[in-house]
């Protein structure tokens, strides 16, 4: 194999900001940092006890974007989300959300600032009904009057949940549980949603639907940080992507370029 097409930027070697190749659709009011950057993660190191899980991760999410984080099992994708959401605060580095340093904030106050998520494995409250789970999503909100409106929005995205609202979450099918997890994240009226493998374990028809919904949520104005095993689909809906390898970012580029990148194709898209 000889020379390749233009090599993707290597994140570690070029800390300079990305050229705006493909601007996301709604590049509106700069709600915080420069260039509409809403979340800025800079060189974070996160540990599980003595296990050094993240060895200097940097990434950004801008207003209106879908950013995807792909990589093999154990690369540290979920750990990156847990560092941002406050469940595993990093020991080194900085996380800035809407201009505020949230590096060491506890999880419950980060939700209040506007980051919500659908975690890996869904993590519903199994003994509560679908409706109660959705209510828990709005737990930290004080504006109760908008609650009904948001519930209608979630039911519009997932009509199945309206039918099942009194059923206990633990007895739902995997796909239905995934819908509850995403709906619950939206009930927080987030300014950024993080989705950890929303398509995991779902039938192909559900997978397509989930990605359509990811796009729909984004088009309604919410930026999304999407962790996925299904790199093909993820790169298809995302504006930009980061490829993780054992605790660091190996590659970053806009999603179209990553999908064409040979290394990515070999490693994550199952092509030769």
């Amino acid at each position, binding site marked *: 194999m000889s020379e390749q097409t233009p090599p993707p930027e290597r994140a570690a070697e070029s800390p300079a900001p990305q050229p705006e190749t493909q601007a996301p659709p709604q590049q509106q009011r700069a709600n915080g940092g420069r260039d509409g950057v809403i979340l800025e993660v800079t060189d974070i190191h996160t540990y599980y006890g003595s296990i050094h899980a993240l060895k200097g991760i940097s990434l950004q999410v801008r207003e209106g974007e879908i950013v995807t984080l792909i990589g093999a099992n154990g690369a540290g994708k979920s750990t990156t989300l847990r560092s941002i*959401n*406050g*469940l595993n605060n990093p020991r080194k580095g900085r996380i800035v959300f809407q201009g505020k340093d949230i590096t060491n904030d*506890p*999880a*419950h*106050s980060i*939700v*209040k600032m506007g980051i*919500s*998520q659908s*975690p890996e494995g869904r*993590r*519903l*409250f*199994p*003994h*509560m009904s679908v409706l109660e789970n959705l*209510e*828990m*999503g709005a*737990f*930290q909100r004080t504006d109760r009057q908008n609650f009904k409106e948001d519930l209608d929005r979630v039911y519009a995205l997932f009509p199945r949940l309206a039918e099942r609202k009194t059923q206990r979450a633990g007895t739902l099918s995997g796909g239905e549980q995934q819908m509850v997890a995403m709906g*619950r994240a939206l009930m*927080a009226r987030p300014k950024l949603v993080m989705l950890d493998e929303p398509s995991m374990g779902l039938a192909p028809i559900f997978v397509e639907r989930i990605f359509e919904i990811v796009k729909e949520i984004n088009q309604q104005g919410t930026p999304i940080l999407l962790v996925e095993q299904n790199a093909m689909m993820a790169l298809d809906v995302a504006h930009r992507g980061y490829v993780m390898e054992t605790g660091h970012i190996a590659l970053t580029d806009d999603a179209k370029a990553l999908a064409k990148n040979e290394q990515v194709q070999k490693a994550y898209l199952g092509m030769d």
Partner: protein
Amino acid sequence: MNVFFIGLTNGAVYGLVALGYTLVYGILQLINFAHGDVFALSGLVAFSVLSGKFLGITSDDSMVIIIGALLLCLILTMPLFAVGNALIELVAYRRLRTAPRLAPLITAVGVSFIVQNVGLAVYDVEFYGATELLPRSNAIEIGSFAYQWNKLIVLLIVVPLLVSLTWFVRSTRQGKAMRATAQDKDASAMMGINVNRTISVTFALAGALAAAAGLLFLLQFNMRYDTGFQLGLFAFTAAVLGGIGNLSGAVLGATIIGLIEAFNEGLRWGHPLDGAWFFPDVGAPSDWTRAVIFGILIAILVFRPEGLLGERTAEGT
């Protein structure tokens, strides 16, 4: 019939303590061995409040004064032990939250000894009781059915407490946070619930209920620094019987244990072995209460570990 009501009354006291075990277990999967001792210490403190220099209540005072004093005592001891129990969690258990389960369990045994020793240091080995404070005259009397004042007060205090606890857990924001935290701590934190504060509130509730139980016990029986050991085990058995982690289960289990104890001791039936030639003297039935109750504990653990009202779930869920 009277035996039945004695059982119900004792069961109500066990129930308050059992709720403390079950609340804490539900949220931390920790058997808080110190809980029985917190109960005993609260009873002794209640004695100090009621007697001597402080309130100086005697059975000669009028019913209104006595009941007022009892309520005042609860207003003092319940918040005191709520805070105390929350502090125990903060100091002894919080840092071990992610440690293997054995570590907090051993710590709980340690805390149990510490609390007991505080009781011993302050109150020595003597027994204290306020059993004469409330008249044993009948408060309600219909035919052969009689209910005495000193038993009635127990239900008068326990029933409102259970109603408010149920309301709190079912309907308040903090109660919802408790139920969510019991099901999944990480997910709860992701919903914006302050998990640490929720656990503190749970311990505080358990402590307050134990303080109420301490006073009620003091009105029925004599107690001292180590009374909490056996009563704690009875209450724990009740919690397991009903399904540990399940609030109604704890009350149901405690009622059953109270009734078993009362019938075992009250009916003076002969034990099957009593007087048999090979084992002529097995003693009074009350000597057997503990054996019966712990026999039940073992039987549940073997045959139905999830308890009467508990659900069969995988470990740790």
